C-alpha cells in the first residue's frame, strides 16, 4: 500500500550522510535539470500537478511562475516550521534524507532564478536542524552548493522561536526579517511573497522534496500516482489510538479506513473507532461513519466537510471524551493565537475558557450558544486562516458530537 517516492531512502541507514546519499541516487536529477531551461522546469512542475504539501494544497507550478516572472533578486524560503498537531512528516525528511531537500532546493532555485534560500526550521527541531546543517556543510564541501557549484545556491538555516503562527508563510517572512511573527494582509491579486521587498517563493519541505523525482522521471511518472486532481503521493502521518503510529507515504486517493488498518495497524487494543481528525488539528473532525467512506485526497475530504490539510491523521477511539478532546485543541489555539486580529485574539481565549465550564460540568445552554456565536465571529473576519481553522474545529465537533456537549450542561 505504501508508495515510496519521497520516503525512498528513509529506511537506509545513514542516508543523511552525503556518501550514503550519493550511493542511493541523490543529486542524480541535477544532470537532467541543467538540460532544461528554467521555464521548462516550471512547465514540468505545472504538468505534474504538484500541489503544496504544507496543508493548503495550492498548485505549486503557478506559485513558482509568479516568483519566476519577476526580474532581479529572488529568494526561495523553505517552510520547515512544522508545528501542526498530528503532523510530523517534514522532520522525517530533514533527519532521514536531508540531501533530498537540498537537491529539491537546487532544482527550485534554478527554476525560479534564485540563488539564495532559507530554511525556516521550527525552533523545537534543534536536533533535526543540526542534522540538516551537517548535510548542508557536506554539500558545500563537495561544491554541490555555493559559488563553485554548477548553479550557485546558498542555503541558510533559520530556527524559529517557537510560535505556531510562523508556519503561516507571511508571518514566517516577517519573522525571518526579524519582526514579530504577524501575518501580513493578503494581496488582492495573485503575487509572490516578498522578503525584504524582493519576490520570494515559500514552499513546504515536502513539496520541495518531491521535485527531484519529477525532474528525473518526468511529470507523467508523477501523475501516474494519485487521483486526477490530487496527483502523486503524500507523507501521511498517523497518530493517536493506533497500533503503529508513524509516517507512511501513500498515493492520494487511498481509503482512509484502509490506511488506518493496513498501515496504522488498526485502532489500538482492538477498540472501536470513534472519529478521526484527518489532516492536522486544524481540519474538522470526521466521525467513524464518514471515515469509512473517506478517501485521502483534497477533493473527497472537502466534500465530506473537512480537509486533507497536512495529511496528519489523529485517530480517536471509542473511549475518548469529545469535550476533552476539543478542550485540548482549543487550549492549543488559545496559546498560539498571535494576537494581531481582534476576533482571533479574544475569540480563541473565550472559547477555551468557556470549554472549561463543560469540562467542570457547570456549563449552561448559553455557553453552548457562546461557542457557536464566537465560532461564527472568528470565521472569515481575520487576516490569516488561524481563527477560521479554530472555528472549523469547533463547528466540526459540535456538528457531529453535540450530544456529548449537551450532557455537560447543568
Amino acid at each position, binding site marked *: 500500500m505504501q508508495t515510496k517516492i519521497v520516503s525512498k531512502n528513509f529506511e537506509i541507514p545513514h542516508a543523511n550522510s552525503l556518501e550514503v546519499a550519493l550511493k542511493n541516487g541523490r543529486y542524480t536529477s541535477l544532470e537532467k535539470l541543467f538540460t532544461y531551461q528554467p521555464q521548462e522546469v516550471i512547465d514540468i512542475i505545472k504538468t505534474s500537478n504538484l500541489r503544496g504539501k504544507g496543508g493548503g494544497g495550492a498548485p505549486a507550478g503557478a506559485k513558482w511562475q509568479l516568483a519566476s516572472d519577476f526580474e532581479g533578486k529572488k529568494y526561495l524560503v523553505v517552510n520547515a516550521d512544522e508545528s501542526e498537531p498530528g503532523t510530523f512528516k517534514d522532520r522525517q525528511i530533514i533527519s532521514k534524507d536531508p540531501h533530498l531537500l537540498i537537491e529539491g532546493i537546487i532544482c527550485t532555485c534554478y527554476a525560479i532564478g534564485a540563488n539564495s534560500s532559507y530554511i525556516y526550521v521550527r525552533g523545537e527541531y534543534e536536533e533535526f536542524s543540526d542534522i540538516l546543517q551537517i548535510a548542508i556543510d557536506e554539500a558545500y564541501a563537495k561544491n554541490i552548493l555555493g559559488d563553485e557549484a554548477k548553479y550557485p545556491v546558498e542555503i541558510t538555516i533559520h530556527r524559529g522561536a517557537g510560535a505556531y503562527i510562523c508556519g503561516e508563510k507571511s508571518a514566517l517572512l516577517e519573522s525571518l526579517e526579524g519582526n514579530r511573527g504577524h501575518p501580513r494582509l493578503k494581496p488582492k491579486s495573485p503575487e509572490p511573497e516578498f522578503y525584504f521587498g524582493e519576490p520570494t517563493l515559500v514552499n513546504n519541505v515536502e513539496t520541495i522534496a518531491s521535485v527531484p523525482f519529477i525532474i528525473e522521471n518526468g511529470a507523467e511518472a508523477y501523475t501516474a500516482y494519485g487521483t486526477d486532481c490530487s496527483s502523486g503521493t503524500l507523507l501521511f502521518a498517523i497518530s493517536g489510538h493506533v497500533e503503529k503510529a508513524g509516517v507512511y507515504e501513500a498515493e492520494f486517493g487511498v481509503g482512509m479506513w484502509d490506511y488506518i488498518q493496513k498501515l496504522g495497524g488498526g485502532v489500538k487494543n482492538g477498540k472501536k473507532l470513534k472519529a478521526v481528525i484527518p489532516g492536522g488539528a486544524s481540519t474538522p473532525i470526521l466521525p467513524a461513519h464518514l471515515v469509512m467512506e473517506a478517501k485521502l485526497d483534497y477533493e473527497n475530504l472537502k466534500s465530506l466537510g473537512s480537509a486533507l490539510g497536512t495529511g496528519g491523521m489523529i485517530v480517536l477511539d471509542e473511549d475518548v471524551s469529545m469535550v476533552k478532546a476539543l478542550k485540548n485543541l482549543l487550549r492549543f489555539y488559545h496559546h498560539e493565537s498571535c494576537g494581531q486580529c481582534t476576533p482571533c*485574539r479574544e475569540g*480563541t481565549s473565550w472559547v477555551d475558557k468557556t470549554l472549561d*465550564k463543560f469540562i467542570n460540568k457547570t456549563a449552561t445552554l448559553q455557553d453552548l450558544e457562546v461557542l457557536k456565536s464566537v465560532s461564527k465571529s472568528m470565521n472569515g473576519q481575520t487576516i490569516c486562516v488561524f481563527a477560521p481553522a479554530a472555528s472549523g474545529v469547533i463547528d466540526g465537533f459540535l456538528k457531529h458530537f453535540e450530544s456529548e456537549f449537551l450532557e455537560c450542561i447543568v
Partner: protein
Amino acid sequence: MKILVDNTPIECQEGELLIDVLINNGVEIPHFCYQQDLGMDGNCRMCMVEIKGQKRPQIACDTFVCENLEVSTKSEKINEVKRSILELELLNHPVDCPICDQAGECKLQDYYMDYGLYESHLCTPKTKKGKHIDLGSNVMLDQERCVLCMRCVRFTSNITKTGELGVIGRGDKAKIAVAPNHPLNNSYAMNVVELCPVGALTSKDFRFQQRVWFLDSAKSICHGCSRGCNIFIDYNETKYTDEKVYRFRARRNKEINLSFLCDFGRLSYKELNEKFTSSTWHVETFKEYLKIEKKVALASPSLSLQQLQAIKEFCEKNSIALYSLPYVDESFGDDWLKINDRSANFAGVKELLISTCQNDFENSLKDANLIINFDHNLLKSHMPENKQLLHFSTSKCDYGTVYAIANFAHENGTLINCDGIRQEYYATKYRCETPRLVELLEELK
C-alpha cells in the same frame, strides 16, 4: 470616478483607500487601528463593509476604490458583524469608564452606543494585565483597556523611528510594553496618547485634571516655533474660576503637522495659564510717556499679522523706531517638526517690512530714552540702564512698567509659518479679563 456608498454616489479618485473616501465624505465608519497618517494595519477588523460581489465582509482600510464599487456600511448583516467584533474588543476590557480619563472621547464608548447595546454573554473570568504602568515621557499605560490597535507601536517604529514600544505575549496575553530600562523617550512621545483610541495610554499631565465633556475647543496654531502646527486649545471656565487651558491637541493639517505635535509644543499651553501683576491702564498716563524724546520699540515676532500691523501704524504715527528680532534657538530644531526659529510669525514680520537688524536695534537702544516692548522675550528679563521701559506683555516681566495684554488663546489672528503658509487662529469663546493689544492701540489714536 464615482462609487456607490449606501446607494449614494460619492466622487473619488481611482486607487484611493475606501476608508479615506468614507472618512473624507463624512460617512460613519468605525475603526481603531486605521489612522490617516499612520496608514492601514488591518488588525482591528472594525471597519467591515459589505461589497457587492464579495462573499464575505471586507475591511475598508484594505480596500482600494475602483469603478462601479458598491459598498454598504449600514446593512443589518454588517451591523451584526460590527457588533460581534465590538463584543470581542470589550470582552477583556475592564469597563472602568467612570475612572477612565478617556471617557467622553473613547471610541469603545462611542461604538458601543452606535453598534453595540447588547447584553453581555461573558461568563468566564477576564484576562488580567498590567495597570498604571509609567512608560516615560508623561505617558501612562493601562494594558487592560488596550485594544491592541498598534497605533502607538506604529508611531514609534514608523514615524519617530525610535521603536520604544512593542507588543509582547501572544493571543489574549498580548500587550503593549517597553523593554526594561528603555522607557519611551523621544520628543514626540506624547502623540501616542492622542493616537490611542481608548483609555490605554493617558497623559500624566492631563489625566484626572478635567472631564473632557466639560472642555471646549478652539482652533489655533502652536506658537512654540515657526512650524505653525495646527492645534486645538482645550479649555473651560467654571463658575468661580477664570478660564483655564487644559491641553493642546493636534489638529490635522496634511501640509504641516499631519496629526502630530512635539511634546514641547504640546506642553506649552501652561504659559497661557500664568498669572502676573500688571499696572492699571490709563490712556492719559501712557500719552505722557509718549512725550519722551527718542523712543524705540521692539515687537515680538510671534505676534499676529494684525497685531504687528497695528504696532507698525502706532509707531509710525508717534515716530518710534520699530524693530523685531527673531527667537533663534540652535538646540531646538530637529529633522521633523521642530525648527530652530522659535518665532511663530517671523515671516509675517518680514512681510510687513519691519526692521530685523540687530545692530540697528542695539544702536537705537543706546540713544533711546523710552523703550516700548511689545511682548518680546528679550527685554522681559533684561533691563537696559537709565531707560524708561514699558511692556505690553502676555507674561511676567522682571523690570519696567507692565501692561498685561491678552495672549493668543484670546486672539483671532493670522500667522505665516516657516514655509510661507498663511494660517488663521481663533480665540476661545469666553470673555477675556485682559485687554487685547489692538484695542489698546486703538484707544491711543
